[in-house]
């Protein structure tokens, strides 16, 4: 299982439009019957895009796999194959690393001025903006996420991320440092070298931007392994990046599976840095392989079981809508999904009733269809896993309020599912389900909810809903998580650092913090003779 990551302007565009009418009735959507997926699946909308790139991109050229092998990429709406893609293994990784090594050691990329690098990234952002429609269509086709979400929030966010990192390229500052004695001390921030990056399938383009943006801004070269479920959009944008002027070998993209392509990249002796986003289980393997090979530093963005905590002074309607969004967004396939909804006992009943009603109004169907909120899960494996967890919820005596079943007979559609009376020791309250399954839990007071919210091996994110400033301030410090959203959720911006406590990962992506992942710090010391001051 690979995994996750969230978008973006979502809370500003999609979410805010949703929030404006939490009490929206079915009437508005009368042309779309509830769970109308079966019909939608039978008449799938044909995406307006060609699949042009299916080979590896190594040293600026599209090439077949060394073995000649390919693997299928699917349309999760139907489970049908949409393309055969070059399947990378150790030999392809070797070739890609060697291209990246040469581009770093001898090529123009780290040697050109930061401003020139920044111009190339800006030109790339402009090209992506021009190709937004095709890219969004390809993303939806291969991933199943709503087309409107891809086009209206993820593509603009992608462009925004590259503008942001282009702006950093010429502002990466080392320090001069005071010496305890007559020394002149400087700290150089140097590119770290060849970066290996492994990205998941839930936000293929945004994860590309989170990884590739800072690494390039800092002057590194890259070997990127995409998720086997979603290899297509990365190849498309990588081609645009070369069109924008990226020298060959700076970004190499290899498609393939974790054990056969990911592992050789992680274990490679000539890769200087590894960044991985995916499951906690795989993250552990990544860290171990890095330790056993050349001790490359590792950043990990892993799983979560993020609490969404609603206090009794919160506006219930808003909290319901946001809790719904926090869990169901992107088919529930978000590492930071608010998958434990803690509700204060005084408003629990009202909240539950409204949360259930909202889930039942959720529009599931062909993600290319306008107004559809939820598409299919990514693949059969995830689909079956989510259904297994739903069974587990029922068996552990949580109350199934709605949903719980597959929709239709084709593709990987699952009903929006809500469990109430969820207890902390149930599997559905402990494991990352990564699907449209909301677990609602009741709490009495702030001390209790802090304790319970933190009683998890994860620590990625949390939502807090309250009007009380003291409650908000206390919660933001007490929660052992990398992001706390207060009266909002899934607000992602290029400048906001993101990453986990505990088993949710190591390091931070985005913001100024992301640059540290791709820089070596070199101290330079020399004696000072008769300095005017030290």
């Amino acid at each position, binding site marked *: 299982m690979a995994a996750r990551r969230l978008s973006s302007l979502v809370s500003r565009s999609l979410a805010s439009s949703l929030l404006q009418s939490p009490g929206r009735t079915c009437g508005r959507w009368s042309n779309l019957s509830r769970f109308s997926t079966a019909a939608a699946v039978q008449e799938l909308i044909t995406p307006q895009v060609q699949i042009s790139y299916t080979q590896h991109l190594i040293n600026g050229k599209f090439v077949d796999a060394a073995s000649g092998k390919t693997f299928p990429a699917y349309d999760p709406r139907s489970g049908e194959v949409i393309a055969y893609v070059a399947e990378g293994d150790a030999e392809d990784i070797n070739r890609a690393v060697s291209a990246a090594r040469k581009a770093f050691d001898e090529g123009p990329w780290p040697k050109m001025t930061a*401003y020139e690098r920044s111009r190339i990234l800006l030109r790339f952002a402009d090209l992506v903006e021009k190709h937004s429609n095709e890219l969004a269509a390809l993303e939806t086709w291969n991933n199943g996420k709503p087309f409107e979400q891809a086009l209206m929030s993820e593509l603009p966010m992608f462009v925004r991320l590259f503008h942001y990192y282009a702006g950093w390229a010429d502002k990466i*500052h080392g320090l001069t440092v005071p010496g305890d004695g007559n020394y002149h001390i400087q700290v150089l921030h140097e590119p770290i070298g060849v970066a290996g990056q492994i990205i998941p399938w839930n936000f293929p383009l945004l994860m590309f931007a989170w990884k590739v943006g800072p690494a390039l801004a800092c002057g590194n070269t890259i070997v990127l392994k995409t998720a086997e479920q979603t290899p297509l959009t990365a190849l498309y944008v990588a081609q645009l990046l070369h069109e924008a002027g990226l020298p060959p070998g700076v970004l190499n993209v290899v498609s393939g599976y974790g054990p056969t392509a990911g592992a050789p990249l992680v274990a490679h002796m000539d890769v200087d840095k590894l960044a991985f986003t995916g499951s906690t289980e795989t993250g552990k393997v990544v860290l171990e392989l890095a330790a056993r090979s050349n001790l490359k530093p590792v950043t990990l963005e892993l799983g979560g079981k993020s609490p969404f905590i609603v206090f009794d002074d919160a506006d219930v309607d808003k909290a319901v809508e946001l809790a719904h969004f926090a869990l169901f967004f992107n088919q529930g396939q978000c590492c930071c999904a608010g998958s434990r909804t803690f509700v204060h006992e005084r408003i629990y009943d009202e909240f539950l009733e409204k949360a259930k009603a909202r889930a039942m109004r959720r529009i599931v169907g062909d993600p290319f269809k306008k107004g559809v909120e939820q598409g299919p899960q990514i693949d059969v494996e995830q689909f079956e896993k989510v259904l297994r967890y739903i069974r587990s919820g029922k068996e552990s005596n949580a109350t199934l309020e709605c949903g719980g079943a597959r929709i239709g007979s084709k593709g990987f559609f699952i009903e929006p599912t809500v469990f109430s009376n969820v207890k902390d020791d149930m599997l559905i309250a402990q494991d990352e389900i990564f699907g449209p399954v909301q677990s609602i839990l009741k709490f009495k007071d702030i001390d209790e909810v802090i304790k319970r919210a933190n009683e998890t091996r994860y620590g990625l994110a949390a939502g807090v809903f309250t009007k009380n400033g003291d409650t908000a301030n206390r919660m933001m410090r007490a929660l052992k998580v990398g992001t706390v959203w207060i009266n909002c959720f899934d607000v992602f911006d290029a400048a906001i650092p993101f990453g986990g406590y505990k088993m949710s990962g190591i390091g931070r992506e985005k913001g100024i913090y992301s640059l540290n992942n791709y820089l070596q710090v070199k101290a330079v010391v020399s004696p000072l003779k008769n300095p005017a001051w030290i």
Partner: protein
Amino acid sequence: MGSLSNGHSIDIKFTKLFINGQFVDSVSGKTFETIDPRTGDVIASVAEATKEDVDAAVQAARHAFDSGPWPRMSGSERGRILMKWADLIDQHTEEIATLDTMDAGKLFQFCKMEVPSVANMLRYYAGAADKIHGEVLKTAGKFHAYTLLEPIGVVGHIIPWNFPSSLFFTKVSPSLAAGCTMVVKPAEQTPLSALFYAHLAKLAGIPDGVLNVVPGFGKIAGSAVSSHMDIDKVSFTGSTQTGREVMQAAAKSNLKQVSLELGGKSPLIVFDDADVDTAAQLALIGILFNKGEVCVAGSRVFVQEGIYDEFEKKLVEKAKAWVVGDPFEPNVQQGPQVDKRQFEKILSYIEHGKREGATLLTGGKAIGNKGYYIEPTIFANVKEDMLIAKDEIFGPVMALSKFKTMEEAIERANNTTYGLAAGIVTKNIDIANTVSRSVRAGMIWVNCYFIFEHDIPFGGYKASGFGKDYGMEALHKYLQVKSVVTPIYNSPWH
């Protein structure tokens, strides 16, 4: 229509004040003439701002700041607009370069590089607009505290004539990135490119009232800016004398914040181990670039005694080969001084130098009988109490002298009221490090000179002013720091 040598001709499109997104006549209806320094001929009549016009511009800027979209849009949105402005500038390089050359007598070849470089500066600050970080703080008590970096408000910018394009953007770019609104007073000698930039700003989508440009004279329009009760910050680049007046006006009016980038008498120190030819070339460029009309000009050149004679010989040879003439000609290295007043001032300093007993090695006279051309001029045996060693001449006049030891060079380099920049030429790392820390100046160039970059902060010590331009530092001139503090209960850590 101005008619220029070499087939250059240009239609002067913008000669009015730019207030609240419109080109308007001045309230008084007055205009002033801007002159081509190659000939002394009039290029165009430009609307002259007086106090009433500055009031209108401030009112527009105030409204744009208090109620307009500019400070309320995100840094990244402001950045996108600045990026677009940069692209528009790149599309008009020739036209703007022509304006600056006509207006200031600058080399056309140089202006054609300067205009794209201001577009690059805009892009730098476009990329900075979403990277203005406050901090979350440590408190001794049980408090949660953080800082907000807020745009300071309405900024008054007063800019000089020697780099009309660069200095316009040195001021305007970081303040726009920070979210401020502004009133810009360009120099009366060089108002044309600023008005053109204002026109492009509007096309790029900078909202009306955010950027206002009011050409006029220092005593009238400039002083209206620096004494205005509704301007929150004044940023001035110009002479030290005028800088004092700006600061006094700020003190007497509303105590607006002030930053000043003023004059200099910057030393270039050449040590015995230097490559003499390279050092002589650096020294020559250091004083002759832009006709010596540069605040950081290396106007005092100190050369160590071991190589002095050879250095002097090479320097004079190079100075004699320097080509002065029409700045539109591609082989010309030096155009005319900006106006009659500067021209006469420089010639009078040259007379002072001769009277005070310095040795005139080369130059010393005006060239031709039309326009404001002056020969590259080098004085040797210059003593520290001579006027030509103390005052900023702002022309192609070098004060050359000999030194024995590093300690002596440091002492003499610091023996000035100014502290803007310094150059060091040496291969010795210890000398470079020690002198870098010992010279009281805001910019030290080691084995180079005139290196200005967007990310390198620049500004003076002592009477050369205060506050830094360029780099992320410059943003802080246009930001207020606000601390927010609140009690925190039951925090798991402090």
